[in-house]
């Protein structure tokens, strides 16, 4: 007799879990029917546009919107600032205007008069000396253990280096924004968000209404990457203007404003001293790093450096720089990509100094990785090396060929905590056998709908089409925000629990009706209820025993019952070429071997990895925010000059999911963050391998590569 406990099916028995299953919302997206926030266009919708600061720093002396209010079509005006307020970065919001037509709002904004008292600014975030001179630095602590000084004295090899990662913007292709419509005292908000359940209150409080009067809806979201957890001041402004105008208003950030205020990832620049014994084992790490998270200072968390290694003697100190630039927001796996690029580049240079191969050096130091995953990393390294043909292609740094185009290999590894996030869901099993689920989660492109449907369909032995997933509304049972790779574990754990609970109740009814001695001997498979291999009844017949009312079961999580887990890792290896005459870096092949526990949908999992590799190539080779030291402006805040890879700019990408039974048995762990962590270090190491020169700061634009080859300090 089977025990009634929450568990995933035995791996060999799965019909859906772990297979390649196309996402359920694919048809809506591929046919243009999916309605994103910017697509909401209810009758009478007004269009809102923004006036933003052209100054990096100043005090507002005058704002005059009288003329703007009289312009044709204008229905509402909102002031984000008043006279006397400070402006702290270029792009900060000043005024919003809602009009009947978008171009009328633009015309009206031209009539707004703003005068500033200009103040000094600072945006030179990589320059710690100038930042100190401008009194923009602040010590943010130190993280140390062991005796670094003593370890350095006895080390066989010591390497000192400088490395860095520039600030990037989230650059969501669907910008931040909302469509707000009042229906009496109730506010309906369509919000481009990663946080459906958590944003209603963020609207209600500043509007002075009850959260119960707010409904937040997000059926589809065009990219967030950690930047869309909030209602935001422009969202609240949209609601206020809708109230003032008595009409629905849509306010989406324009592209430049999206780049300037929609979220950035902090920069990090580090001076490192790292040392190893003669065997190649790292014995000491000593670093000081700086960077900016915007006006508030901040930067890359000192407590996680070095990453993901815990060397026996280490010291890391951090200085934050306050810059007149837009605020940071969580960017996919914060701040692991920077930590990885600041650590494993220095390690790779140390390996070269030891005259050890990168592979052997990293393998030697796996014992120092966090979370006790050395064996998993070793297995993943072996798989990745085979996939990229490391053994045949490897050469010592600087021996990448005789011509101007040099070829090289690089590797890096990563970890992420993840775990299951909070989720409540309600599932209904209807007497006709149909199944539906309700939860206030969101599918931000990661396949949340699909993995929930797989979970329920597998549980009930039904085809995917037999399950309907309803999400994207704050009126459904609350579910956590989608950030930190905790959604899949959260929602699928809760649904498996609810599903099994419902199934057991149905089994009890079947056992009673069909005189089965033990309800626990029953299984649901292929649309039938079976006892052993013998069919007892169909699923529909079983559900008809419910009577007229659907069976409703609540699912909750997270729980420590083995359905979900945390902690994942992966290894990435890249094969690339560097043109030493043009500075152009070209990826030939990029391999990621990734573990993430039990995989519900292999197709979607690989898709996440491949997408992460592209984002990694972007911040490694081309993507960065460029601030102008003379004007304090973000000078490449458009898609022509904010350089993202195009479809011809990436090489062959290979995603290999590492899932032996030991991983399957761990339960579900999320995957969104981890594969985006290691590309920076891996690509940097491959460039160093190709050329014998370390290009210190990512992204490796042709200029940075050529400067490094000429010996110019970054």
């Amino acid at each position, binding site marked *: 007799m089977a025990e009634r406990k929450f568990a995933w099916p035995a791996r060999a028995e799965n019909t859906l879990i772990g297979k390649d299953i196309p996402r359920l919302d694919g048809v809506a997206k591929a046919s243009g029917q999916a309605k994103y926030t910017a697509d909401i266009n209810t009758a009478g919708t007004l269009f809102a546009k923004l006036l933003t600061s052209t100054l990096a720093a100043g005090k507002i002396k005058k704002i005059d919107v009288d003329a703007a209010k009289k312009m044709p079509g204008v229905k509402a005006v909102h002031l984000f600032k008043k006279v006397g307020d400070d402006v702290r970065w270029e792009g900060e919001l000043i005024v919003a205007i809602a009009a009947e037509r978008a171009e009328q709002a633009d015309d009206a904004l031209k009539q707004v008069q703003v005068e500033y008292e200009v103040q000094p600014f600072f945006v030179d975030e990589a320059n710690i000396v100038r930042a100190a001179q401008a009194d923009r630095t602040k010590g943010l602590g130190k993280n140390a253990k062991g005796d670094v000084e003593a370890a350095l004295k006895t080390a066989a090899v010591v390497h000192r280096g400088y490395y860095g990662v520039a600030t990037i913007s989230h650059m969501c292709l669907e910008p931040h924004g909302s469509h707000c419509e009042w229906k009496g005292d109730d506010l309906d908000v369509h919000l481009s968000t990663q946080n459906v359940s958590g944003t209603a209150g963020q609207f209600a409080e500043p509007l002075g209404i009850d959260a119960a009067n707010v409904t937040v809806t997000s059926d589809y979201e065009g990219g967030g990457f950690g930047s869309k957890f909030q209602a935001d001041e422009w969202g609240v402004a949209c609601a206020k203007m809708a109230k003032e105008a008595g009409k629905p208003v849509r306010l*989406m950030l324009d592209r430049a404003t999206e780049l300037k205020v929609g979220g950035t990832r902090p920069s990090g620049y580090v001076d490192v001293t790292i040392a190893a014994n003669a065997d190649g084992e790292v014995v000491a790490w000593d670093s000081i790093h700086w960077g900016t998270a915007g006006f508030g200072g901040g930067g890359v968390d000192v407590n996680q450096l070095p990453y993901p290694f815990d060397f026996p003697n280490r010291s890391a100190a951090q200085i934050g720089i306050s810059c007149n630039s837009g605020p940071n927001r969580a960017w996919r796996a914060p701040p692991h990509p920077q930590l990885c690029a600041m650590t494993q580049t220095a390690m790779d240079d140390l390996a070269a100094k030891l005259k050890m191969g990168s592979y052997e050096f990293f393998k030697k130091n796996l014992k120092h990785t966090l979370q006790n995953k050395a064996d998993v990393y070793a297995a993943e390294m072996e798989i990745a090396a085979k996939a990229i043909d490391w053994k045949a292609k490897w050469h010592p740094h600087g021996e990448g060929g005789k011509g101007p185009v040099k070829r090289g290999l690089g590797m890096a590894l990563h970890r992420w905590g993840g775990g299951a996030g909070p989720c409540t869901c309600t599932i209904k099993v209807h007497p006709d056998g149909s199944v539906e689920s309700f939860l206030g989660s969101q599918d931000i492109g990661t396949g949340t709908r699909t993995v929930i449907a797989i979970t329920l369909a597998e549980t009930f032995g039904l085809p995917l089409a037999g399950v309907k997933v309803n999400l994207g509304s704050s009126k459904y049972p609350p579910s956590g925000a989608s950030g930190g790779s905790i959604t899949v574990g959260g929602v699928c754990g809760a649904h498996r629990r609810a599903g099994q609970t419902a199934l057991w109740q149905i089994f009890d009814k079947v056992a009673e009706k069909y005189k089965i001695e033990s309800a626990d001997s029953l299984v649901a498979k292929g649309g039938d209820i079976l006892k052993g291999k013998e069919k007892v009844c169909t699923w529909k017949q079983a559900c008809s025993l419910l009577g007229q009312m659907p069976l409703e079961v609540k699912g909750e999580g997270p729980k420590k019952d083995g359905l979900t887990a945390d902690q994942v890792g992966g290894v990435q290896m890249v094969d690339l070429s560097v043109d030493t005459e043009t500075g152009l870096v070209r990826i030939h092949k990029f391999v990621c071997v990734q573990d993430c526990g039990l995989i519900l949908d292999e197709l*979607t999992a690989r898709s996440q990895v491949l997408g992460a590799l592209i984002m990694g190539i972007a911040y490694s080779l081309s993507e960065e925010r460029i601030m102008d030291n003379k004007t304090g402006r973000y000078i490449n805040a458009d898609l022509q000059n904010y350089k993202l890879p195009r479809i011809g700019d990436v090489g062959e990408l290979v995603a290999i999911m590492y899932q032996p039974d030991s991983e399957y048995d761990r339960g579900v762990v999320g995957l969104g963050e981890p594969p985006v962590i290691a590309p920076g270090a891996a690509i940097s190491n491959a460039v160093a391998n190709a050329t014998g020169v370390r290009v210190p700061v990512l992204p490796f634009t042709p200029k940075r590569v050529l400067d490094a080859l000429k010996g110019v300090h970054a």
Partner: protein
Amino acid sequence: MAKRRVVTTTINGRQTEFLCEPRQTLLEVLRDTLDLTGAKEGCANGNCGACTVLMNGRPVDSCLVLGVETEGAVLETIEGVAPVDGLDPIQQAFLENAALQCGICTPGFIMSCKSLLAENSDPTENDIRFYLAGNLCRCTGYDKIVRAVLDAAKKRNAEPAPA
């Protein structure tokens, strides 16, 4: 302010008249006037391709075309790609190859793919990467899009020619 103009076009096979101001883009007309919101606004200056539609069979960034310029034109948007009883092979290939994630760039990519396969029924991987260079994706991982187009071409070519 310039007077509004009446423009007559054919959109997805149906003759369509709309009223627009001379400065309104085709993208604004499609999305805000005709409620054809499949074409997305990503940048509004022709750099991302999210608003790609076909105008007289050629792909255009609809954010760079004025509504009045489409007088007499034949337009095709993502809403007109699928046959009544299912999906176009390109759309099906995007699904099967997981060539879409958040999906915001997908309509633009599919329209460009449609134009590519109309011009070149058997494109190489290089042909695809060259032709789709105007379409930007932030999260999908372009590789799957290339696979999807190769798949779609293969399936189309395997279909018997119409009698």
